[in-house]
């Protein structure tokens, strides 16, 4: 057996363990924790979108929280005002967030890099006061509450378990989507646009198109995540979508590793559970940790936790190959013995 197949096996085992862990969550934890895990799954979807943009396409958005909020409000409004089925609101949430992404992306993409950061940073600051101001639509500071969907009769389990399952399905779908998108020709064009404009363009990649598509997809995924969040939470208000939410998603993406799919879960769990845990000591502690995490990860581990794991795996593989190579060399040195 060679090193590469060991790595593949380890990866597969890791994925299987992760899937198993995600499946047994409702059985292992009390209802409130199951709810928090559901929220973490919705965050993970938004982070996945960010990973697609930052990790695979080399662009940046610090306004993922705004697109998340747009999705959440869309779902909330269509559920309460038009009495629409909660599942049917999700495509609309994706659509509205994508349209906003398109509007933001077109001007910002004319000048790559920093302008996109300015515009999205501005959007992150502007989002919360706008949600307050558009009171006829968003009901201002009061927020919109909706009835959480009833558990269907075929489902054996309580409401929290049902919503968790819903989020898990949503996450699995998004992970599959990103996995599919980052492989094959689409993935190659995305990464080519990230690694070298010139080479990508000369190989026939339409840079603006690819970048805009990536940005819109990233926003759309945030919209999907936001819609799910609204369903799970049963309530949306500007309180849930402050400027810091956008930075939270950035932290989640960086911590898990921007080119990792499973890393998005690690990042999401961190941003759900760390503030709760840190607030017991000091309300400023989570901010301090987030800030430190962003800076330190950039200085020492740009590929995040999953990147570190991957480096370890590669190191392991090289060692195995090296051992085998030494063994072969030994055999060749004592060639006489083989020739007998």
């Amino acid at each position, binding site marked *: 057996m060679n090193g590469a197949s060991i790595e593949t096996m380890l990866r597969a085992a890791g994925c299987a363990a992760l899937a198993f862990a995600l499946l047994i969550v409702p059985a292992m934890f009390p209802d409130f924790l199951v709810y928090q895990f559901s929220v973490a799954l919705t965050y993970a979807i938004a982070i996945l979108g960010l990973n697609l943009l930052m990790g695979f396409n080399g662009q940046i958005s610090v306004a993922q929280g705004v697109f998340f909020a747009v999705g959440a409000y869309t779902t909330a409004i269509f559920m309460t005002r038009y009495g629409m089925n909660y599942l049917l609101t999700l495509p609309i949430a994706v659509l509205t967030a994508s349209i906003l992404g398109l509007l933001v992306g077109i001007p910002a993409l004319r000048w790559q890099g920093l302008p996109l950061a300015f515009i999205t940073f501005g959007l992150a600051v*502007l989002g919360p006061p706008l949600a307050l101001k558009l009171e006829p639509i968003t009901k201002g500071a009061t927020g919109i509450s909706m009835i959480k969907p009833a558990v269907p009769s075929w489902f054996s389990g309580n409401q929290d378990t049902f919503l968790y399952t819903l989020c898990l399905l949503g996450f699995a779908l998004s992970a599959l989507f990103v996995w599919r998108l980052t492989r094959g020709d689409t993935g190659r064009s995305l990464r080519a646009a990230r690694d070298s404009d010139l080479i990508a363009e000369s190989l026939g990649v339409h840079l603006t198109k690819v970048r805009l598509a990536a940005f819109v997809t990233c926003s759309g995924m945030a919209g999907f995540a936001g819609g799910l969040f609204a369903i799970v939470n049963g309530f949306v208000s500007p309180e849930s979508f402050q400027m810091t939410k956008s930075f939270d998603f950035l932290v989640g993406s960086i911590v898990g590793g921007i080119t990792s799919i499973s890393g998005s879960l690690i990042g999401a769990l961190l941003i759900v559970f760390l503030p709760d845990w840190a607030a017991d000591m000091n309300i400023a502690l989570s901010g301090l940790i987030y800030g430190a995490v962003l800076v330190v990860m950039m200085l020492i581990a740009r590929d995040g936790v999953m990147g570190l794991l991957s480096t370890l795996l590669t190191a392991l593989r090289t060692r195995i190959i090296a051992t085998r190579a030494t063994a072969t060399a030994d055999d060749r040195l004592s060639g006489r013995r083989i020739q007998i």
Partner: protein
Amino acid sequence: MTIRSFAKLTLVPDMQLFLQQIVEGLASGAIYASLAIALVLIYRATRIVNFAQGEMATLSAYFAWQLNQWGMPFWLSLIIVAAVSFVMGALVFRLIMRPVLGASDNTMVVVCIGLFVGFEAVALWFWGADPHAFPRIFPDYAWTIGGVRLTANNLGILATLCLLTVGLSALFRYTRIGLAMRASAAEREKSPLVGIPVENMLMLGWGLAATVGFIAAALIAPSLFLSPPMMVSVVIYALAAATLGGWDSLAGAIVGGLVVGIAESLCATFIGFIGTDLKVGVPFALMAIVLLARPQGLFGTSAVIRA
């Protein structure tokens, strides 16, 4: 009563309001311009857009407030903290930015957002979320000229901006250090060949920017009240000002700041929907328009890339 005199009656107060808003806009614009100067100083030196500039300045303002609370004369605390801010800026460069110099824009953005979150958390940790009153630097005095109120505070802010501009221009134009700083910013690889300690010069740029940022914070703190997120929206104004001015020009940052200040003040007064809550949308819109129409800004030079 003729139509003309009627028109005159309604126009006069509006004109006064208009002029008054321009004066207010110039004063706040001068503050945005100061922060924009800090951003441009750093961008010129290291090609980094320091999103955390405002949060660093807020922390400095807290230092000054604390020293003053402990009984130090206000002017003395301002001078001491100006020096402390310089050291803080230099340290941030030395410890955090230097290792990532030359990395991609995205890496820099993430590091700066990290600093943004971190510095805000530090202020929250030590001083809590409750806003504090910050003493006024200039006396409470006002003149009324033709129905327009000119306060000593507004004039003082504008005078500070003038002093700052003259001082920085003189530094860059007439001193050896200024020349060395310009050289390090323009040619990071070649400057060491003529004996310029480039990294020290870049560090100096970061220190200067932190001091200038502190001045902006000390000017705006009396009207905004001192709180950890005080400068969050001011940074957007400064980003818009620097974008308008073109990122590599001090004059551009100043003009940009004043334009943003006036536009904000006029839009907030005369466009009902915007009001005080959505004022921050004005610089955002300006920034978007400039990026769309003239990405190199009004005063900037467009980079020509040879493929």
